[in-house]
């Protein structure tokens, strides 16, 4: 059983997955933020690998990525920062989220080996298609014991959801509705509920986390009614903007969601 599965088994419900962008707000904030986020009670941590053109992300994460890149963040720097992370944070699952091109240029094998050495548990690459994952990446991911996490949207067909469910032992990332990260949910109440219930009724192997547009205690608790937990990213990034002490700001933010 991997660390992601253990986290779900231990808690069962109301899991909080916190996303932040590596190298934001400062280059060296990465490790202090991981420690603070874990200590504040997040159950999973998703580290964003900044990319110049993050298509699935809204303006907040794009801006944090631009700042992180200007700060000098890249794959080599990130992996050197994460080198001893498992001595600091032993149990909290750590996932890397990013886009395919920087991973391709770094080399898939190199990427997976470095991630495994650092103690990373899962990888989210939204622009990696399922077929390409199976054909070209799955073997390497398995070799290094990394779990892929795939996104599911209200438009994803049931047979495709089944296929995604078969391809991983981690969790399913339920995109709450149409839009990029950090957006407002503009769907009619019943539409979203019906979508979550439809997925719930499929009795899938993997637990589910709801993401996109979750940003405070109320939206977190509401999401937790329909899944094992939820993912917060843009709202945390906003809480880090312009602060002196990023770890303290992250702690305050997470407390405000969980209290």
């Amino acid at each position: 059983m991997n660390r992601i599965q253990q986290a779900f088994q231990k808690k069962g419900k109301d899991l909080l997955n916190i996303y932040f962008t590596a190298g934001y707000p400062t280059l060296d904030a990465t490790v202090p933020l991981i420690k603070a986020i874990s200590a504040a009670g997040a159950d999973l941590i998703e580290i964003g690998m900044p990319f110049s053109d993050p298509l699935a992300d809204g303006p907040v994460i794009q801006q944090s990525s631009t700042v992180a890149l200007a700060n000098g963040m890249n794959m080599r720097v990130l992996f050197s920062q994460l080198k001893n992370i498992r001595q600091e944070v032993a149990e909290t699952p750590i996932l890397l989220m990013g886009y395919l091109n920087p991973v391709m240029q770094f080399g898939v094998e190199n990427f997976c080996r470095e991630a495994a050495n650092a103690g990373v548990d899962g990888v989210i690459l939204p622009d990696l298609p399922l077929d390409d994952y199976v054909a070209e990446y799955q073997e390497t991911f398995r070799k290094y014991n990394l779990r892929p996490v795939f996104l599911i949207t209200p438009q994803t067909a049931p047979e495709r959801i089944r296929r995604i469910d078969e391809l991983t032992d981690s969790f399913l990332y339920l995109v709450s509705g149409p839009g990029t990260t950090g957006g407002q949910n503009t769907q009619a109440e019943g539409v979203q509920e019906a979508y979550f219930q439809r997925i719930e009724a499929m009795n899938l192997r993997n637990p589910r986390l709801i993401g996109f547009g979750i940003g405070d205690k109320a939206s977190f608790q509401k999401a937790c009614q329909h899944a094992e937990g939820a993912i917060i990213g843009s709202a945390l990034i906003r809480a880090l903007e312009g602060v002196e002490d990023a770890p303290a700001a992250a702690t305050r933010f997470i407390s405000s969601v969980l209290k």
Partner: protein
Amino acid sequence: MSTTYQQPTERGYYGQFGGAFIPEMLYPNVEELRQNYLDIMAEPAFQEEYQQLLRDYVGRPTPLFEAKRLSEKYNTRVFLKREDLCHTGAHKVNNTVGQILLAKRLGKTRIIAETGAGQHGVATATVCALMGMQCIVYMGEIDMERQKPNVYRMRLLGAEVRAAMSGSRTLKDATNEAIRDWISNPVDTHYIIGSVVGPHPYPDLVARLQAVISEEMRKQLLEKTGSELPNYVVACVGGGSNAAGAFYHFLEEPSVNLVAVEAAGHGVNSGHSAATSVLGKPGIIHGSRTLLMQDEDGQITEPYSLSAGLDYPGIGPLHAYLADSGRARFISIEDEAALRAVAELSRLEGIIPALETAHALAALGQLGAGPDDVVVVNLSGRGDKDLETYLKYADTIL
């Protein structure tokens, strides 16, 4: 051979280039298009409506004009394929007419597009007006400034022009914003991509819709030269839609030299260039694996060209394959040489070309074509939109 130049694989690959690297949010849209585009385009009713619009609305076939004074200057036979005479002033409308008919048949009611120089935006706004569809065009803030007349044109046609404020605020960023819009509007919206870029099936779809250019060329060449096949076909490449259309029916004719002309900006090695085939390496942009200008970390770098239609950091996967396999020759032309070519065509033939098109014309001296060779330059657009730029650089041009 599993792929030909004309026909990508089922998953949209030309050699190692192409594919559909898109987030799950776009998958149903792109898949719907992929499963339907060939069938819809093969329907007699679609073809009838498309051909009729090309003839009566766009003004096709466009003339193939033998440019005698230009020919004399370069000591070869130069023909100009007059796409600049298309309705809206460029080849872009061939694609938008086809895609709006496709969008209607897919039941879409809202159209989005990206634009660089504004020609594709205008061509999209035009067909949306024609069909009574809602139209939103994303355009980089910098491009809105340097192509003001086209911004006004789009608004006059009833489109909403939204400024892309991120990144370099040019074509790449406008495309990002259009893709984000599509993610946010997955059911009622069709995205009319303006070039042979993006996830499969777009590169193939746009190439097929632009292929009418080379289809006409073959007939017109037969009439004027006694052979359907020229010795050279020359076209400028940003994303590469006019080049794809001009090359399409010659791709499998090895005797025809295909010449793709990229924008060198201030010079290929100046750090201010858009010569992707020289400066790019394989990578992923806007859902397609292609040659891409990027740094060693895989971050996409900002291209530069004075022309707003050529400063794209990638090229269509078909063109990446043509460059990689050597089927096409790639030449890059600097800003200044392009500006001089504007003056040359204006003075010698009485035709003011678009700045993008001028890059193709500026390559004429580098072809090595002989006196009996037939050279076709795809005159992709007219220069009205660039008059402000031409005025600014009057010292270079005149």
